[in-house]
């Protein structure tokens, strides 16, 4: 087999997709698919991932993959799982539902909650890039406090997004599902470990992966991994694991960094550096995370 063909054979999410340079989401999708393996079926919500990976008539996926609508990735996956159960193939095939933060935390939340409630054997993965990037950076329920987006613009009367991130992993854990966790592409081995662990568990699972978006965050493509790591080290993105509704593990922060280090790399927080008061408020969000999850 030529080297080129061999390379494409071992990857399940291949080159040639049309993501931006330095895209955290395409990186995360490859990490997930290469752990999940070929015996996987994927239901995808509308979003960046769907658009850049399947430029019709081409596709970057090496597994059966379906896209239906924005809100119903969980419902479509539930149907796939029910059919696999009915035909007795559920032990051979794993089902993954996936979407961005808008498709999960805002638009697809009721379908996700239904899927968790009915107890389908599905892993739901939320690629959290903290806004609707596909349609041009509108704020979503998972946009962080004080971030500039096109629907929460920073200016004279506003300092960006007025609300803090929706506690999505806790909403999912509150369904008392076997596994709900967060991860970050800054720690790629941790992402793969968590996907592997989740796929070994039967029942509904939820994983939220923090994926920097150079376009929407106005950051350098080469800094994608650095930014993802800093979000964790400044306690703005706590890495936690829940089992059956109980917090079982958190990623401890050895040396807590000031939030400024994370904010200064991104254009969406540029306006904060003229406003000391707002910087303190972002610092308070990090402190609250530290206290609430016991990150130190």
């Amino acid at each position, binding site marked *: 087999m030529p080297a080129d063909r061999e*390379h494409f054979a071992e990857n399940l999410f291949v*080159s*040639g*997709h049309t993501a931006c340079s330095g895209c955290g989401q395409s*990186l995360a999708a490859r*990490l997930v698919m290469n752990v999940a393996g070929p015996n996987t079926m994927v239901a995808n919500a509308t979003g960046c991932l769907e658009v850049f990976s399947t*430029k019709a008539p081409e596709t970057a996926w090496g*597994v059966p993959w379906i896209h239906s609508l924005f809100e119903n990735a969980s419902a479509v996956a539930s149907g796939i799982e029910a059919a696999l159960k009915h035909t007795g193939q559920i032990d051979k095939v794993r089902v993954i539902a996936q979407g961005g933060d808008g498709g999960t935390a805002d638009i697809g939340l009721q379908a996700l909650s239904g899927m968790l409630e009915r107890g389908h054997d599905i892993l739901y993965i939320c690629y959290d890039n903290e806004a609707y990037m596909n349609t041009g950076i509108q704020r979503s329920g998972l946009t962080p406090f004080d971030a500039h987006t096109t629907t929460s613009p920073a200016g004279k009367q506003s300092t960006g997004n007025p609300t803090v991130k929706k506690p999505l992993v806790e909403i999912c854990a509150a369904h008392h599902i076997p596994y709900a966790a967060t991860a970050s592409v800054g720690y790629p081995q941790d992402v793969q470990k968590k996907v592997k662990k989740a796929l070994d568990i039967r029942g509904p699972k939820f994983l939220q992966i923090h994926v920097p978006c150079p376009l929407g965050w106005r950051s350098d493509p080469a800094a*994608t991994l650095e930014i993802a790591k800093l979000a964790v080290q400044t306690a703005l993105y706590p890495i936690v694991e829940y089992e059956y509704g109980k917090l079982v593990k958190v990623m401890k922060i050895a040396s807590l960094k000031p939030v400024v280090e994370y904010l200064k790399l991104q254009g969406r927080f540029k306006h904060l550096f003229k406003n000391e008061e707002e910087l303190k408020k972002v610092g308070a969000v990090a402190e609250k995370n530290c206290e609430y999850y016991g990150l130190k």
Partner: protein
Amino acid sequence: MFSILASKAKTSRANKTGSWRSLKKPKYLKTNCIGCKLCKLICPEGCIEGKEKNQYDTNLDYCKGCGLCVYICPKKDIEMVDEDK
């Protein structure tokens, strides 16, 4: 009409996204590589090929020149060079 609704797997490789690179491309020095595979693991394009140490290299047909491989390499064995070198 329906032929467009389903695509054959992995057909996106027809898009040679390497033409998106504007200024720099990664160069593998192939001297201090320890074969940790980190560059291959984190490449957003998945275009790094190779199996053993000092053999990894980027497929420039697909590389978009983000430079994440340079950031992650623990031995600093990859560097960004000008496109015409």
